[in-house]
């Protein structure tokens, strides 16, 4: 139990996927303009991460034991197809849910946080339960970083950011400060 808590916290804040592993930066910068959108993207990503964790575990356990070199290829293909399948199901079953979360799904498929999750999970040898907790933590961490970034950017829109810095440069520097703040979590649980 304690181990699961630290896996969760580790992925959530200590080794935050976005601010410490640089995973999922494209949506982190692209979709953090509005808080509501960012939050929804975070939720959708967390969902996909859980699917990924399960899929990766299943592949590792049942298919790829003898074929480690097929890992990358099968991960990416299975994840992409699974997500696309889920997208279609959601679109058919609940248009409201699709409008709220589903529209982000294509964006998420090519998100390195997803593939990164599968790879880290494999290299750390997580089991199914650990994998799911890890996915929840990583997704939560991504959502947290994204929501903070989005709310900061919305606030900064009302600020007098110099024209020179506006845009990507500002976002990068803002993320840098945020990453420095997240350094406070370093070593959480290690002592």
């Amino acid at each position, binding site marked *: 139990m304690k181990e699961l808590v630290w896996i969760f916290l580790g992925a959530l804040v200590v080794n935050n996927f976005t601010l410490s592993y640089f995973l999922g930066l494209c949506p982190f910068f692209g979709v953090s303009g509005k808080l509501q959108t960012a939050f929804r993207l975070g939720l959708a990503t967390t969902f996909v991460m859980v699917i990924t964790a399960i899929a990766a575990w299943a592949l590792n356990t049942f298919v790829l034991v003898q074929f480690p070199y097929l890992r990358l290829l099968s991960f990416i293909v299975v994840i992409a197809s699974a997500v696309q399948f889920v997208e279609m199901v959601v679109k058919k079953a609940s248009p409201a849910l699709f409008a709220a979360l589903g529209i982000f799904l294509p964006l998420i498929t090519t998100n390195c946080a997803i593939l990164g999750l599968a790879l880290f999970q494999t290299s750390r040898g997580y089991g199914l339960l650990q994998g799911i907790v890890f996915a929840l933590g990583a997704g939560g961490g991504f959502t947290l970083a994204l929501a903070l970034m989005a*709310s900061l950017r919305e606030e900064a829109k009302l600020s007098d*950011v*110099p024209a020179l810095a506006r845009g990507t440069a500002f976002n990068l520097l803002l993320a840098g*400060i945020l990453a420095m*703040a997240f350094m*406070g979590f370093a*070593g*959480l649980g290690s002592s």
Partner: protein
Amino acid sequence: MTGRGHRLDLQAAPFLHTTLSTPRLMVEVILCTLPVLAAATWFFGVVALLVVAAATAGAVFAEWALATRAPRGNTLRDGSGVLTGLLVGLTLPPAIPLWMAALGGFVAIALGKQLFGGLGQNLFNPALVGRAFLQAAFPGALTTWGAPRGFLDVPASTFALPFLHGGLDGMSTATPLALHKFEHTTTGLWALFSGDVAGSLGETSALVLLLVGLWLGLRRAFDWRIPVAILVATALLGGALHLLDPVRNPGPLFLLTSGGLLFGAVFMATDPVSSPTTPRGALAFGAGIGALVVVIRDYGGLPEGVMYAILLMNAATPLLERVSQPRPFGRRRAA
């Protein structure tokens, strides 16, 4: 016609205005850093003045050089640059090379303030952005605590040339927090209260900080809710964890008087720009800082977490503000 022969001006109401002004507020807080600086000089000697002066110089230079609006140097008049520099200086250890202190002041203003457009626009406490940058860049120098020594003694590292470390190792002592975390030794409360311990320049004397905080609170120079919420949250959560594991987790009084908690609560968290404006937001903000400080100190890898706690809550401030907007007059929640 007995009025003036020329045209009237057209201003917008109200035509009366409070006598309070932003530069006056800044000057008031600057004046309140002076007792803290005096205490630092008392405990660490003349080097305290040197470090604070270097940080202030760095900050003022950045404010001047990176002015976004003409004429250059105009923004210096509100005094906020000087204040940021002073605060950066007061959070640094006494033996830090002066060039690092100056760099800290510069980064504080450049990255922490001018990037966002200057006074009132920043999302993070500029002084802490500078301090966090230094901590991340020079972890060694920022965690080497010279012991309080003779008044005129200046460590060799102080005048290290830029980019060089100037021999920091060798004469370090540990802060009360590090002592507790790594050696499980608790420092006496009186030493913590008076300030006769290792630590950053401005943070050691709980007594001076409490008095200054009380004064600023009475003058309404800051939102009293923030420091009060920080202290209460730290004491409550710290106390609860202390009861769970008295050896590992220090007691609430130790938590309150050690490290940068009081300095952060009085001077850093209360920076109005980067903290919530709303009363309920301010309470949540303070409570969040207190909780994070306790979590980082008790379970984190670092002995001290006030700076990170405040920066993290700075980041959460827009979210807090959003959910804590006051209920407008005549709008009940249900209706």
